């Protein structure tokens, strides 16, 4: 049997007396895990970028990049996560996010919104940096939202997680990236994976009491304990129209036993919005046909 591509096993050993996550113990074989790499998830990322003035007509220049990931065990447990490369989210609440959408309609409203929402600064500082990378494989992807790991004894440990790339970042300016053409990132990852499987470490960060779990604009202190729980190995890239990702919803509240939502209000809001998005796009499937014959209609 092939090596598991993601292995999450017995985290009890690595967390000392505070047993946190021993319910989240499973190994996944190749073929049971898939994800979508791209410039947008269910529309949220696209919106964030448009608001931040980052999205240009050219798809190769996307600043906010994301991955949607599904891990399924043979026993039927499913874990879905939609992550982006920004280390923090622009706003603290879904209400503020709606306010951001409204404010983005005019420059004046946007100025007023920025003045009223200083928490935008963290995301803004990241978004404004010019040291982009030229590959999806060189980006980290963050859960952003806090979740709760619960062990068999009921102990709750708030966590955030991220995929940390094995590939070293080769920085590039936004202008240089734009010159490489609109589909550069898609072509690059396809060729890169064809040459060599690409790896990320799935790193879980454990909150200390008092860390802000309900506010995704606030990073946790750097010295928080990290637990590397597995390695994601991307072995194959498929075009979206025919791949296994196009017709599922990477709803971040789809969690296996032992992982729960926290007091972070975003996963619920994302779940509700992604469901609506899924309903709408599956209703328009005739406008997005599969390209290969013999695949499902």
């Amino acid at each position: 049997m092939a090596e598991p591509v993601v292995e999450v096993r017995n985290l009890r050993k690595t967390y000392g007396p505070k047993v946190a996550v021993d319910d989240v113990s499973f190994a996944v074989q190749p073929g049971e895990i898939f994800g979508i790499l791209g410039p947008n998830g269910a529309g949220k990322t696209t919106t964030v970028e448009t608001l931040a003035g980052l999205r240009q007509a050219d798809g190769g220049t996307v600043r906010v990049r994301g991955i949607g990931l599904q891990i399924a065990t043979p026993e039927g447990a499913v874990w879905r996560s939609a992550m982006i490369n920004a280390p923090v989210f622009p706003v603290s609440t879904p209400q503020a996010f709606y306010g951001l959408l409204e404010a983005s309609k005019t420059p004046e409203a946007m100025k007023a919104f920025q003045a009223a929402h200083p928490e935008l600064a963290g995301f803004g500082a990241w978004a404004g940096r010019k040291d982009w990378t030229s590959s999806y494989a060189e980006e980290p992807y963050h859960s952003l939202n806090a979740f709760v790991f619960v062990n068999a004894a009921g102990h709750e440990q708030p966590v955030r997680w991220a995929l940390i790339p094995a590939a070293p970042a080769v920085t590039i300016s936004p202008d240089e990236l734009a010159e490489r053409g609109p589909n550069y990132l898609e072509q690059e990852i396809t060729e890169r994976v064809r040459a060599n499987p690409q790896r990320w470490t799935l790193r879980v960060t454990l909150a200390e009491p008092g860390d802000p779990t309900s506010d995704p604009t606030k990073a946790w202190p750097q010295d928080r304990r990290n637990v590397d729980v597995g390695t994601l190995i991307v072995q194959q890239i498929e075009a979206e129209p025919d791949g296994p990702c196009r017709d599922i919803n990477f709803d971040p509240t789809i969690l296996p036993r032992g992982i729960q939502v926290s007091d972070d209000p975003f996963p619920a809001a994302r779940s509700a919005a992604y469901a609506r998005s899924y309903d709408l796009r599956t209703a328009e499937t005739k406008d997005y046909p599969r390209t290969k014959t013999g695949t499902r209609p």
Partner: protein
Amino acid sequence: MTERTQSFTLFQRVLHWLMAICILAMLFIGVGMVSTVMPKYVPLLVTHKTLGMAILVLALIRLVVRLRYGAPPLPADLPQPMKLAAVASHYLLYAMFIGIPLIGWGMLSAADYPIVLYGGIRVPAILPQSDFLHTLLWNAHFYLGFALFALILMHIAAALFHALIRRDGVFQSMTSQRFAFRTEPE
């Protein structure tokens, strides 16, 4: 002149009122769930799926019990159109009690969502992923939900009509074991 109307069996009455609570809660949970992006969305969704499965199981039990024990006859003097409406609406109610949860189950299956109920109980998919089926079943679930809402309102109106206006014992056949007596107006 008096007329006797038999009651439903105790088991049938318990099933009826248990389902009444579930379904009334369900109508509001369903509407509330699709109207919010607040944190309560997640528990509402789990409750909706769990209650839906409970209603499906209760409805199947109830169908078997109904086929086995039947229902008390309607009053002989009930006008024919009302008798027809009573019989037809009950066929429709049973069809919806069974059909709407099945459609919801199929809809989630066709979207390839893992179906996890309260307490982490996992339910298998009953259909393969299909955009076409998902859209069809989503629409059916949505509109039949509102149709059930309307039917339930008519059912309550009819029950109150029997209880308060006609006073013919039909309402009591679902509330008590006692035989209901009705006196014809002079």
